[in-house]
């Protein structure tokens, strides 16, 4: 598929690296020569140096023939304008990154409609949403939702002495009397899809699928804390901090934000009603202790510096805050932070590129059973996808046990008429179902038929 990406900054370059591995024909436009030459050195893409709102530059980049046009420059307005131009020049679909809170209420729908945008992405909003989900279920280290929140994939780490360790997967469901499925296991650096006889160990990171209610039941049964975080401290009051606090205070939590810049503090307290905004340096231990760090249910670091986030999070973990969420932008640091013992690391860039990939794959297969949602789980070593079964899928009505499914692929859930079910051998897929599929070891699925041998 022909894709043009405008703006190769932080978000842009993460998207480019992911789209390149998906084998798309990529053209990158950026106005900075050094950025352009760096990108062209690293990735197999064509680069055009120029202004993203210059029609001749866009034409040179092949926008008129492009299937997808993505604007991810630093400026919302520039993104909107270049998407508009791109669409008018003939790009089939356009995605703009729009992050300013002012655009994200009524005006956004209007803009989307009139600029003919296929999608508007707000990285901070998406990250805030993900963090919010995590805070609702603090014992999980990562939660992804499918099918309008009907099914979740939850990642947890089996701590020492966990009740789940030493039990084979077949016995698990009976023992805990909940409907769930262990869909992926990460042991060491390897991720695989376990069979029924697989026995879990301490230290495994596992992915669980099920409806939120059933998963909650399981968590209770195995004694993992399921209490929602009520009092939350946030370090850094940027856009992400603002979105997250707004969501949290709307659901009745008590939130404290520590922010360094007085001006930002002022803005925050204007926009938020019940959140306590504190002006101070989040890296100063006295301030955190004074504001009652040790009594917090959860702690979120959202400063602009990855390193600072890691260090402050480690400090909070050392003070036994039950849930610590760290925002990290650079991919290299994500792995490092996880090795240092920080469980819940969230990268807005990764979330955005997940969304874009999801959109691109859905476009490519729009004729068949298209990708509805896509997440990278288990440290990006597996993919979880949701498909809506289209009329072209020829294996409907066949019991799953008779389908020849490729290795390292699991059907983790079927949702029929909004009712989720855990698939067993006798279940089958019907047209119109939503099917959740898990694929490990680098398989890239674009269509539901790809899972059949």
């Amino acid at each position, binding site marked *: 598929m022909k894709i043009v990406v405008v703006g190769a900054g932080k978000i842009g370059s993460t998207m480019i690296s992911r789209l*390149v591995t998906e084998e798309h*024909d990529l053209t990158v436009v950026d106005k900075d020569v*050094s950025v352009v030459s760096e990108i062209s*050195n690293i990735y*197999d*893409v*064509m680069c055009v*140096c120029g202004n993203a709102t210059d029609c001749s530059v866009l034409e040179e980049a092949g926008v008129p023939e492009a299937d997808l046009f993505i604007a991810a420059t630093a400026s919302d307005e520039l993104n909107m304008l270049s998407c508009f131009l791109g669409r008018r020049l003939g790009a089939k679909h356009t995605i703009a990154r729009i992050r300013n809170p002012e655009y994200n209420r009524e005006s956004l729908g209007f803009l989307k409609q009139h600029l003919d945008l296929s999608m508007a992405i707000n990285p901070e909003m998406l990250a805030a949403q993900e963090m919010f989900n995590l805070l609702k279920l603090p014992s999980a280290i990562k939660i992804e939702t499918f099918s309008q929140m009907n099914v979740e994939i939850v990642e947890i780490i089996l701590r020492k002495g966990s009740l789940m360790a030493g039990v084979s997967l077949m016995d698990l469901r009976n023992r805990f009397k909940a409907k769930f499925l262990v869909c992926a296991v990460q042991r060491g650096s390897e991720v695989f899809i376990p069979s029924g006889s697989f026995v879990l160990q301490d230290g495994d990171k596992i992915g669980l699928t099920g409806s939120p209610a059933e998963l909650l039941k399981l968590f209770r049964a195995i004694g993992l804390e399921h209490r929602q975080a009520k009092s939350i401290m946030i370090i850094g009051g940027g856009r992400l901090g603002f979105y997250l606090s707004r969501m949290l205070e709307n659901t009745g939590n008590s939130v404290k934000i520590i922010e360094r810049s007085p001006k930002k503090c002022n803005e925050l307290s204007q926009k938020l009603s019940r959140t306590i905004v504190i002006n101070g340096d989040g890296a100063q231990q006295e301030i955190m202790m004074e504001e009652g760090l040790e009594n917090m249910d959860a702690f979120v670091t959202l400063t602009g510096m990855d390193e600072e986030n890691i260090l402050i999070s480690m400090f909070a973990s050392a003070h036994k805050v039950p849930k610590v969420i760290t925002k990290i932008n650079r991919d290299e640091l994500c792995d490092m932070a996880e090795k240092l013992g920080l469980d819940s690391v969230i990268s807005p860039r990764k979330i955005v590129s997940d969304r874009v990939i999801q959109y691109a794959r859905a476009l490519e297969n729009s004729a068949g059973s298209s990708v509805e949602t896509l997440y990278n789980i288990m440290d990006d070593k597996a993919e979880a996808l949701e498909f809506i079964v289209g009329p072209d899928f020829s294996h409907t009505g066949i019991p799953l046990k008779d389908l020849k499914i490729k290795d390292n692929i699991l059907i983790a859930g079927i949702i029929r008429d909004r009712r989720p079910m855990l698939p067993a051998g006798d279940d089958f897929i019907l047209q119109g179902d939503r099917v959740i599929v898990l694929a490990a070891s680098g398989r890239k699925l674009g269509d539901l038929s790809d899972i059949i041998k």
Partner: protein
Amino acid sequence: MNRRLVFYRAGQLLVLEAMLLILPLIVSLIYGEMICVKAFALTMVIAAVPGLALSFVLRPKTRVFFAKEGFALVSLAWILMSLVGALPYVISGEINSYIDALFETVSGLTTTGATILTDVESMSRGLLFWRSFTHWIGGMGVLVLMMAIIPGNSGRGIHIMRAEMAGPIIGKIVPKIKDTTRILYIIYFCLTALEIILLLAGGMPVFDSVVYSLGTAGTGGFGIKADSIESYSPYVQWVITAFMLLFSVNFNLYYLLILRRFKTFVTNRELWCFGAVVLISAAIIGVSIYPLYNSVGDAARHAFFQVASISSTTGYSTADFDRWPQIAKGVIFLLMFMGGCAGSTAGGLKVSRVMLLFKQMKKEFRRMLHPRSVAVVKLEGKAVDDETLRSVSIYFSVYIVLIALTFIIICVDGFDFQTNLTAAVSCVNNVGPGFGAVGPAFGYSEYSDISTIVLTIAMLLGRLEIYPLILASDPRIWTKGSRKAARP
């Protein structure tokens, strides 16, 4: 450095060369030259066995090319290609000295067209075909060909393309490097085929038209007659003139034509500049040689042919231009430096580099007059960044040093000043003929072995634009320590 990867690719390259040798083998079979058939078959075995061994034993873990690997591979590839490519001449016994055979092969691959042969017409057909076929292979670049046909070159293949293709700025024409190299080769192939057809239409024998087309396409210049093109009809000479010019135009422009982006094509400054230089040079030469031929048609034909031949760094000739007036010789000598457009098969400095050098000069002069003036150098309507500008000026200095070194070493052989200077300039720029004892009517056979080796190296350096070979000769880049974690 990832030595494993570099040798793995080099192995694949040898296999590719073995496959390319099938063509001259077939030609030898057609003409029943059994000695040549044996020579080619043996060479194929010699290339294929270590090639297959390398590419099977050394399956690399990471396939990421950094700049270092790119330089190393390009140098290694060209040296191996030349060493193996010289074998058929020696095995068949038609060239006795391996050093001479190597010179001939390098001259072919680098599209120079300088020859040590004294009697071309007595050579067997198979070897003559191979000689010209090396022009075609070397013209666009053998690694570029490899990237187009062998799967698995991902990501940073641009480093290889940059190291092998000539010009200050190498851009892709489509997002994927594989598609880019394929398009370039398809254009290359089609233009060559078109030339063959046009030459056949002019009544040229089949073998001659194929060989001359291959030589023109690579802008090489090996002929199969002692007097190059002189004995062919004016029609043939005009066709070759046109194609020499066509092959020294940036191939990306042809792709723009296919895409029907005529405006970008027409407004290409490098093309205009190249056209202007060709026209002006041809006019000066035409006027100066008019007294020799006494016919406007002949003077124009000879002038245009020689200008096209030299500025495209092909090196064919329709007349012994060594006997022309001094002004004509002067123009020809200067044309040797410039070469064709970037991204073509021509050698030399490249038109765009010359343009950048002049623009920089202008900027510097203006700065002397108006110390506070801010001037941006532009090429094709786009600002050129300082880094590119700096690299162009540095390249020019290194290039002059290379010519100077080559010149001073071959002076040992005792030829006259003009011969030595033009031999050095002609080899570094991959032109072929010079003046004096290396003029169009003669060859390089008189030089001693040492000078032959020096000129061989000079041709390789000139073709690969100097840097890759020099960088690869630094033992430090071959050490293991600096292998980095790969980013996809």
